[in-house]
Each structure stands twice: as C-alpha cells, then as structure tokens.
C-alpha cells in the first residue's frame, strides 16, 4: 500500500473509531453518518488539492452542504452542522493571520464576543424583533469587530516577537470578558443579554441559521483563498517563513500583519453575532470564552495551519465530534478530553497537521515513483549511462 493511502486509511479508521460507538449510543444516527460522509468528502478534497480540481471540489462540497439539511432534517443533525460550518468560517478567518503569517492569536474569541454583544445591544436599543432582518444586524457584529481590531492590532503588533503577540492577544480576551462582566449598564453584567427570537418553529428553526452559517463559511473561505493567491498573501507567507528576509525583498511587514489581523476579525464578529442570535441568550463567559480560541487553534492545527483546506477539515472533524460527545455524554466535559487526546495525537504523529502531512507524503511518493522509473530506464540503457558517467 502506498504511504498516502495508508495515511488516509489511518485517518478514516480514527474517525470511525470515534464515531461508531456514538452511532450505537444514539438513537438518531443520520447526522453521524452524514458527518462520516462529509469527512470522507473532505479527505477526498485533500487528495485533489491541485488547483484545477479545487473549484470542482469546492462546488461538490457546497452542493453537499446545501443538500444536507434537506436529507437530515432532525434538530440534532442541523445543529451539529450549524456549529461545524460556523467554525469553518471562524477557523478559516483566523488562519489569515494565525496560519498565513504565523502570528498565533489566542484572543480572536474577543471578536466573537464583540459580534455577539453587538447584535444583542443593537436589537435591544432599537427594539428590533426576531426574523430574517436580524441576520443583517449580524453583519454589524463584523463591522464592530473590525473597528475594535484596529487599535488592538496596532498595540499587539508593535511587539515583534510572536511570543509577546500571543500573550497580548490572550490579555485582550480577558480584558473584554472583564469589561462585559463589569459594564453593568451596557451589558447587564453576569446576568447576560437576551437576543430577540424569531417565531420559526420545530425542526425548521435551525434551517435559516444553518444557511447563514453556510453562506458565511463560503464567503470566508473564498476571502482566504483570494488572499492566499494574491500578492498580499505572498507577502504574508514570506513573513511566516522569515520576517527579516521578507522585509529584505520589499514586503512592508507591519502593514501586512496589521491588515491581515483586522481582516481576520470581521468574519469572526459576524459568526459571534449569528451564534448569539441562534442561542438566544449570551453571557460574558460564554462568548468571551478561551475555549473558543482553543477550538479555533486546534481546528486549524489539526487540519494544517496556513493551508486553505486545513481549517475546513479540522472544523468538520472537531465540531461534530465535540457536539456529539456533548449530546450523548451530557455536559461531563468529554469533549475536553477528546481535545486533549487529539492534540497529543496530532503533535506526535503529524505535527504540521493533516493537510500538509498528506501533501508531503504524496510528494514523496511521486518523487520515489519518478526515481524508480528513472532507475528502470537507466538499467535498460546501461552502456549509455556508463559512457555519460565517464565524461562527467
């Protein structure tokens, strides 16, 4: 068996090993099976990462995602995929600064919370009621996150070492959490804020949220892909590789990092607002939550930081696993155990993440194949090769 096939088999077995017991435990396994199918589709996407097939793969992915709630319409199934798609958007957006430039922010949950509080406060102050119109207000969550990111990025990126950047971003997150707790008049403190609810009923309730998350995911991945293939993206990748050399070839490193930081805040702000609308009530500790940051980083890390597919794949694996564990084992925190175990497994077996590991294995397999063919050819033409060798 070729190494890349072995790796794929390993990943699929791992996914099945986690999922099969859950299928037995749960009564409705539609969502779980669909999840397995999606993971397989994502894996297939990894194999067809070459540019000419990328568009086709994305199209199949989007069609599958559109068809999903029509096939699996239980509340559990749509909730699971709602969160998976929301995190595809969040992790892909985070990847623009964390993955492309290597500046790992552990404070992007601040933008999630800012988006959540924006929709709650705007709806409350303007006396808005639930409905499709509130999704437009969710966009304001993105605007707010982007505006707040300007001074935050300015401060966090003054420090040129990645370590200090990480610490400052964590500090930002806790600062916002404290503010949300203490600015009683605006945020209602620890009592939290309600977001007006729409009158959609039954299993349909999730559908508009599902498609809002899908749209956000598609647009964010599109944005990340566009940046990755642009001159700006080339500069970001150069910064990740070697910031001094990047400056040497003419990349304005500060401007690049700052712009990437601000851009990456916007979709996360929108995601926070959609989440707030979906969950109907927000508290400082649930939207300014360090667990959100860990989930983002682990999703990107598992799939492969700095690649376009990595955060998508990571979110499609982690979110359903987390949701299912919470669903079937209650709030006992088994999802945290899973995160811990997965983190260790990834660090031990493929420290650069699934996508880069698979791509590298494929490249090696191709090189070995080429060498084998060349060997076979040179054995056929031994006298010629000997003559050439004599000249060299």
């Amino acid at each position, binding site marked *: 068996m070729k190494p890349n096939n072995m790796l794929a088999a390993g990943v699929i077995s791992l996914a099945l090993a986690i999922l099969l017991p859950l299928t037995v435990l749960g009564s409705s396994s539609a969502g779980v099976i669909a999840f397995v199918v999606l993971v397989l589709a994502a894996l297939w996407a990894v194999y067809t990462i070459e540019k000419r097939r990328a568009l086709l793969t994305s199209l199949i992915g989007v069609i599958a995602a559109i068809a999903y709630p029509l096939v699996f319409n239980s509340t559990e199934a749509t909730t699971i995929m709602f969160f998976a798609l929301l995190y595809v958007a969040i992790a892909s957006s985070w990847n623009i600064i964390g993955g492309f430039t290597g500046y790992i922010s552990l404070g992007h949950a601040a933008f999630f919370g800012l988006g959540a509080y924006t929709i709650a406060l705007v709806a409350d102050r303007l006396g808005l009621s639930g409905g499709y119109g509130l999704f437009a207000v969710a966009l304001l969550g993105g605007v707010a996150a982007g505006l707040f990111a300007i001074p935050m990025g300015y401060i966090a990126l003054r420090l040129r070492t990645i370590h200090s950047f990480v610490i400052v971003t964590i500090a930002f997150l806790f600062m916002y959490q404290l503010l949300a707790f203490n600015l009683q008049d605006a945020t209602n403190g620890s009592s939290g804020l309600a977001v007006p609810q729409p009158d959609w009923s039954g299993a349909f309730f999730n559908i508009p949220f599902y498609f809002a998350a899908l749209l956000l995911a598609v647009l964010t991945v599109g944005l990340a892909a566009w940046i990755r293939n642009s*001159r700006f993206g080339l500069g970001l*990748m*150069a910064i990740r*590789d*070697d910031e001094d*050399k990047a400056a040497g*070839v*003419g*990349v304005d490193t500060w401007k690049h990092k700052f712009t990437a930081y601000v851009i990456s805040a916007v979709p996360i702000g929108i995601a926070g607002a959609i989440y707030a609308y979906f969950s109907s009530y927000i508290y400082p500790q649930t939207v300014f939550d360090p667990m959100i940051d860990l989930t983002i980083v682990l999703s990107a890390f598992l799939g492969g930081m700095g690649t376009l597919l990595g955060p998508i794949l990571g979110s499609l694996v982690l979110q359903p696993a987390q949701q299912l564990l919470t669903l079937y084992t209650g709030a006992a925190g088994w999802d945290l155990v899973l995160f811990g175990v997965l983190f260790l497994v990834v660090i031990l077996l493929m420290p650069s993440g699934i996508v880069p590991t698979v791509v590298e294995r494929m490249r090696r397999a191709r090189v070995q194949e080429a060498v084998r063919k060349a060997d076979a050819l040179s054995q056929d033409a031994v006298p010629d090769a000997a003559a050439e060798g004599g000249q060299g």
Partner: protein
Amino acid sequence: MSDILEIQGVFAGYGGGDILRGVNLNLEPGTITCIVGPNGAGKSTVMRVVSGVLHPRRGEVRFNGERIDHLSPRQILQAGIVQVPQNRSLFPGMTVEENVRLGAYTLRDRALVDRRLAEVSEQFPIVKERAKDKAGSLSGGQQKLVEFARSLMLDPKLVLLDEPSMGLEPRILGHVFGTMVEMSKAGRTILLVEQNARKGLESSDRGVVMESGRVLLDGPAQGVLSDERIGDLYLGGHVQQH
C-alpha cells in the same frame, strides 16, 4: 560604450577606520568583472557600497552616469542593481515559484510579474521543474540557481554576486558559473566577488585584485589569472608594488 558603473576614489568603512582606501573601478556594460583578494581586502565592502548598504565617506559611485552613493538600498534596487547575497536567502518553507515571484515583490503589475516569471523559467529550467516544491528541499547549488532566477525578476542592469561558490560542492560550481556567463550574454553586467579566485576568474571577462582596501591589479581576467603574483598572494605572500 560608456561605463555602466563608475567607482571613483571611494573611501568607506564601518566606524573603526576605512576599509576601502581610494578604490577606483569601472564596469563596462554586459561584462563580468571578478574581484579577488585575500580576506579583509575589502571585496564585500565594495558590494555594500554599490548596493547602498554602506555610504562612502569620500568619493563617488555613478550608475549610468547618475550618482547613487547617497541612495537607499531600496532606491538602488529600483534603479536596476540587484544583489544576490552570500548566505542562503531563499524562503525555505515557500515553493520555488513563490520565491521567484518574491523577487518582483515591489512590482504591482501582476501581468508584468507573470511575464517575467515565464522569461526567467525559460532561462532557468529548475524554476519550472520544481515550481511547486519547497525551496528548502533543493540542494545548495539548486538554491543558488533559484536565487539567480529571483534576482532577474526586476530585470536588473547590474547584478552583484557575493561569493556564489560559498558552501557549494565543487562539482556543481561549473554549472553555477556557467549560468552566470549566460546571464551576462543576455546583456546583464555582473560584478562578482569570489574567494575561489581561479574558478571566478576563469568565467569572467575582467579581473580585479584587491588588497588592504585598494585595487592592485585590474585587467583582462585571463591576464590576471596567469599573473604569477596572484599565486603569491594566495599563498600568503604580498604583491610587490611597482
């Protein structure tokens, strides 16, 4: 034809006294000039003065007749002088194509960059063959060729090569210097600094011998190569001034 680069009476150093003490050097367009000399002779300092990293204390540097000795490295780059540094300067985690594209990062015209990339790929087949491979996975010699390719992305008139043989296996040196000769035949002027004096001079049109911050010998490369005083110099002796 008038000289593309004129260095006249240049004195320059790093604060602890002058390294260059009255250097005069003129480069004809489309030629390869190789500077040789013992350690500390000031070869690399000449490069730094031309590329704008070090400003001379006295003297003039003219490029196409215009004074450039007061310009910043970036301005000198835009004027058409590119340096390929001594150490490995590629981004090892990025692909070969991305590395070459970064050579034209200061250009905003994407169509122009694409066209240059196509031209450079023609000239350097490795850029096409290994386009999607990480630069860090190439051998030292291959990386040097990609660095050459990258330096041509801004279509420079003058290329400064600082010790291209550094850290390379002897058997691929010929290929690297051969590529340099091709670059020169394509109309670029090359200023080469080389520890491996024999190899450097063999591939050059003109040889310049420096010692203690001055030019001691300046003439056709073949002549410099066969000059017996060069041997003395590299055996640790000193050139006798006439």
